[in-house]
């Protein structure tokens, strides 16, 4: 054979990020490239590390809630929910049923909003700009509903220990019903635009395959693991709040490629809409919060509580030493584990595929760094 070693193409290192349009926040991927082919990926995170775990050690339990908003700014309601649920479970606080329903409504609406935001950024990653604004149009409706309820559009601070901070205004229910009526049609619209678009199929089918074994090995969670054929949803497996009262499905897909991860989120939006509809119909009257004193001290002990956030399992491990401040708070987030498996599924793909895979995992960097 001819000696071709001298003509080899040059492998070179590229820094993708920290400021790069497709890293969705501030993340650096150090890539070793052979032409367009990505040979090695090393994620560098920590650019958004605010040490919320450390801050929490110096705040009272009630003061921590606003910080949880900032862990996953795309799904603040779910972060709130995970934290208050953990504290209540540790201190055995009974939450009024109306508050539980309101929490579920808000958490599921936020899940829809979060998936819409994901859809928007994912299509941009694939180079289609128009669906971005379509998804934002619907997200805007949800933001309006949140603003109507708690005056905020991004960091809500809606839930508190023992209940929720504000009751919904009377315009909320008709607006939500109107929204739920149009949402399935809008999701169909996205599917019309994207699902069977040949270019999208080319770009996503069979790309970045995450097998179910690999998904379990890397502790993936959320839509990413459900797209790999593992039926795992904490809302069903370990029901918290009042999720056991609602009738909904867990969509599961079996190929684990980018297309499956795309499709599963669209399906989840429909399921979440079902939950919200049932919750609004069955919304009981009553108190929205149980009175919990300002200088409240839980007894000594610890709790590990997890919920299903839009990006996977979000868990709080809280240790109390009997004072009004927690001794230690450890936050486990879905993106943290999902980002960890990126090198395993994206190496030896083209750089365009890397962007698609990164987008399909739905990683929010503040959630990784905390």
């Amino acid at each position, binding site marked *: 054979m001819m000696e071709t070693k001298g003509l080899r193409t040059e492998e070179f290192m590229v820094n993708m990020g920290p400021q790069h349009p497709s890293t969705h926040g501030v993340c650096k991927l150090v890539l070793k490239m052979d032409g367009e082919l990505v040979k090695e990926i090393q994620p560098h*995170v*920590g650019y958004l*590390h605010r*040490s919320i*775990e*450390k801050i929490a*050690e110096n705040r009272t339990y009630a003061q921590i809630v606003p910080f949880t908003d900032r862990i996953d700014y795309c799904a603040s309601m779910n972060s709130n929910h995970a934290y208050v649920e953990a504290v209540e*479970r*540790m201190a055995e606080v009974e939450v009024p049923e109306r508050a539980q329903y309101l929490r579920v409504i808000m958490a599921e609406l936020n899940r829809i909003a979060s998936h819409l935001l994901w859809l928007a950024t994912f299509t941009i990653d694939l180079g289609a700009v128009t669906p971005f604004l379509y998804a934002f149009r619907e997200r805007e409706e949800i933001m309006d509903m949140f603003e109507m309820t708690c005056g905020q559009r991004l960091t809500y601070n809606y839930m508190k220990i023992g209940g929720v901070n504000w009751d919904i205004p009377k315009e909320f229910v008709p607006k939500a019903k109107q929204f739920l009526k149009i949402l399935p049609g809008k999701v169909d619209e996205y599917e019309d635009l994207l699902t069977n678009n040949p270019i999208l199929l080319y770009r996503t089918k069979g790309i970045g395959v995450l097998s179910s074994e690999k998904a*379990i*090995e*890397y*502790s993936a969670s959320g839509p990413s693991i459900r797209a790999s054929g*593992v039926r*795992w949803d904490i809302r069903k*497996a*370990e029901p918290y709040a009042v999720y056991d009262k609602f009738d909904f499905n867990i969509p599961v897909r079996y190929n684990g490629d980018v297309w499956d991860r795309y499709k599963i989120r669209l399906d989840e939006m429909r399921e979440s809409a079902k939950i919200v509809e049932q919750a609004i119909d069955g919304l009981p009257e009553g108190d929205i919060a149980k009175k919990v004193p300002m200088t409240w001290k839980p007894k000594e*002990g*610890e*709790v*590990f*509580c*997890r919920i299903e956030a839009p990006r996977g*399992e979000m*868990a709080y*491990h809280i*240790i109390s030493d009997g004072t009004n401040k927690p*001794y*230690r708070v*450890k936050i*486990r987030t879905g993106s*943290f*584990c999902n980002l*960890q*498996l990126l090198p395993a599924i994206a190496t030896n793909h083209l750089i365009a595929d890397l962007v698609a895979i990164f987008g399909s995992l739905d990683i929010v960097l503040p959630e990784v*760094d905390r």
Partner: protein
Amino acid sequence: MDSESLLNHINELHKDIIINSELITDVPTIEVKPEHWVEVCSSLKKDVKTNLHSISNYGAVDYREKLGGFQLVLTIFSHKHKHRVTVKTLVPAQGDEEPEIDTVTTVWLSADWFEREIIELFGVKFKGHPDPRHLMLDDDWDEGFPLRRGWTGTDFIVKPEM
């Protein structure tokens, strides 16, 4: 299998090793000595009845004042049986010491980043960790371990010279 029988099963499995076992908010929790850490973990993963193949949470707690060391808290769960177990161990340490313990990345691949975070934020070293670089902090960070109790932070604000 409900939590109680699961706890009994685990106790049975590691009769002499487990120091302490209890149910915390319905989660079976066991504590082992650091020298049995990897052994217990890998047997919990391999045992057919437990089959705990995924990590749910993995963190450290600074108990130097209370118990004389750092406690590693590892919550693992099984997609197959839909149950979870917490395993704890105490790595003895005093003062500014940086204690060492075997890594569990050999058991679960996903322990990698969790351990890297513990290395830089708590100063607990893991023997045999494949990539013990800093994860969150700068590579040349040398101002202590931020999540240790009593770490006061550094003076980031540079005051103007008068």
